[in-house]
């Protein structure tokens, strides 16, 4: 589809050699009845354009607009909020919550990624050995991914309850003092990280497992004949050959983890005392967590998240292009 859509855009003059020059990779477009083809091209383009504008461009524009105006409830309803430039961003940067929220976001994302990837990879290698019931077990590992987030987060929150949770009951049984998983400022972030790792492992497992399928078995046989042990085979064959898949898994995981909201909100509401507040929960807290919504600063925090995700999205696109070229 790409060449048909490009032709009407790029053609500087009704000269076909010029069009071919603009898109050399594309085969020359059919010369007969160009107009009907153009119509078709536009018609095919319209739904996706409309969709993108309605559901991506406009909300994004509104969010940027929200973050640049001083919205009160009154001006939100009447639509006459004064333009205040970057004032909302300054408010957000000066807020005492900013530094802890940034730190929590970075720690949450980094720790989750490392563990999700490491555990996912270990399980993928494990299941790649095709033992009995491996398919069944692998399917079971997908359960966290299939459960609705509200279910898994509520379940975690029950299990980690200070007084009646099963985790503390087990700790008690083995003689360890109970831990206030969700209600102590030093544990709340760790608790939501643990829950999020559990939820993220299946994604890593599935993608990395499918990556492993594409590594030819002959390589392992040859390495084994040359006397390479399993550890050596992993580091010299599996890991390097899995690199492209790993890169994409990590980048996608990063974008997903950055915007995790549900789990944290259901388990701790970002608390206690903001000890598990990330940008995602902070943005929601500002915009909707209070009877008097602060839409401007809430949108500003949301935009910071969008920018961060965008940066990594670009990195992802770059990596993908590099892979396509190589």
């Amino acid at each position, binding site marked *: *589809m790409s060449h*048909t859509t490009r032709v009407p855009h790029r053609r500087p003059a009704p000269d076909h050699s010029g069009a071919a020059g603009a898109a050399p990779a594309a*085969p020359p*477009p*059919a010369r007969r*009845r160009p107009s*009907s*083809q153009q*119509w*078709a091209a536009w*018609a*095919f383009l*319209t*739904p996706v354009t*409309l969709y993108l504008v309605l559901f991506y461009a406009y909300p994004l524009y509104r969010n940027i607009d929200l973050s640049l105006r001083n919205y*009160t*409830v*009154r001006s*939100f*309803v*009447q*639509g006459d909020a004064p333009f205040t430039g970057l004032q909302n961003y300054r408010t957000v940067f000066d807020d005492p919550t900013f530094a802890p929220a940034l730190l929590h976001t970075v720690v949450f994302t980094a720790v989750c990624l490392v563990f999700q990837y490491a555990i996912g990879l270990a399980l993928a290698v494990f299941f790649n050995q095709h033992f009995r019931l491996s398919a069944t077990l692998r399917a079971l590992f997908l359960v966290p991914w299939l459960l609705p987030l509200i279910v898994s987060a509520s379940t975690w*929150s029950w299990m980690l*309850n*200070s*007084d*009646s949770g099963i985790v503390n009951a087990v700790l008690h049984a083995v003689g360890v003092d109970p831990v*206030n998983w*969700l*209600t*102590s*400022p030093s544990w709340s972030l760790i608790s939501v990280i643990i829950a999020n790792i559990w939820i993220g492992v299946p994604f890593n497992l599935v993608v990395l497992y499918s990556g492993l399928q594409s590594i030819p078995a002959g390589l392992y046989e040859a390495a084994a004949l040359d006397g390479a042990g399993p550890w050596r085979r992993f580091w010299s064959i599996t890991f390097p050959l899995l690199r492209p898949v790993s890169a994409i898994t990590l980048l996608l995981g990063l974008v997903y983890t950055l915007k995790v909201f549900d789990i944290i909100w259901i388990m*701790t*509401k*970002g*608390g*206690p*005392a*903001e*000890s598990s507040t990330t940008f995602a929960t902070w943005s929601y807290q500002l915009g*909707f*967590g*209070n*009877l*008097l*919504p602060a839409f401007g600063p809430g949108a500003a925090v949301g935009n910071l998240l969008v920018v961060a995700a965008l940066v990594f999205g670009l990195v992802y696109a770059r990596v993908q292009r590099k892979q396509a070229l190589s």
Partner: protein
Amino acid sequence: MNSFSRGRRLTAAALTALAVATSATACGSGSTGTGTKAADDGTYTIWDPYPQFAKGSAWVKLLDACGAKAGVKIKRTGFDTSDLANKTLLAAQQDNSPDLLIVDNPVVSTLAEAGVLTTTDENKLDTSKVDPNLLAAGQVGGKTYGTPIGANTLALYYNKKVLKEAGVDVASVKDWPSLTAALAKVEKAGKKGITFSAIGTEEGSFQFLPWFWGSGAKLTELDSPAAVSALSLWKGWLDKGYAPNSVLNNTQTTSWQEFATGDYAFAENGTWQLAGAKKAGFDYGVLPVPASGGGNAAAPTGGEFVTVPVQSDTGRYTTTQKLTTCLTSTQNLYDTDTTLSYVAPTTEIQDKQVAADPELKPWVEAVRSAKGRTSDDLGTKYPKISEQMWKAVQSALSGSKSPKDALTAAQSAVK
């Protein structure tokens, strides 16, 4: 794609165009469908925060009956209560407000500030019979923006069996020291003391307020010594193990579930749990939250207001007024408040409720001495104060700050 025959290509293009056109019209009709502005088509919209009532419930039947009486059709939507304020603001932004809005009382001042609601001067709601302390939550700057449909408030439920085993006479619980002493006895007897909700949302502030006001503190001064004493009381209970650490994450519902296990002596909870209390299967009693030095603390009022959002077509108000009059008529209010397990907003109906169910007596008394969160003309200042208050409660109870430091920080954040 180049291999497509011309005819097929044209068909595809035509189909796509058709699809786009239909989806565009679908969007168009969708937005007018949810709207209320389709001239006067005889359909009036009502939004309420009672999603638990489905079609066929007494509440929905009442709405339909009132509609039929006024000669119009009712289109009712039940929202989650925490969603309703934002949904209403968005609807008002698009000039798409419902004709009648039933909304949680502390939200009324925010919506009034936004210019979303009509005053009782404009919508001719009769509020003359309503208890003034309940009506105050809907008053901003000398104007009234609705009328309460019912009220609820907080009190202490107690488990008679647990108290008896611990040797506590509930009549001795008159102030904070005697309550703490009772908790200590319960703890010694191997049972659990008290449960409440100190979660980091409006619910947490709602539950803290009886103690806050009971200490003599004022919402305009969060860091007063009285306020510190209220927070220290809670903190002391947690430190000594009289209250579980899970209160930090408890909603009022989870706190109630803890009490319903039968292990707890006391639970701070609301009128709406009465039905659940009867089902819990143990003997319970209710006592008002004591103030620090004896007597009853003022508890915050809960419950919803009937309001009339501003319409661009002012001709709709006449019918809306008929609907509100019907909804707030004595018999209908009585029925509604019985369904919701609320205390009625007028003395006349309150007496009727107590006559029918003597168990409501302590609740009616509690509601009469209760206080609106946005009262004292706090209005839209309340949400900010409340947010800082629940944060301070969370900081202090989780041990990240002392009660005094937490409240000082809260007061300086409110400014």
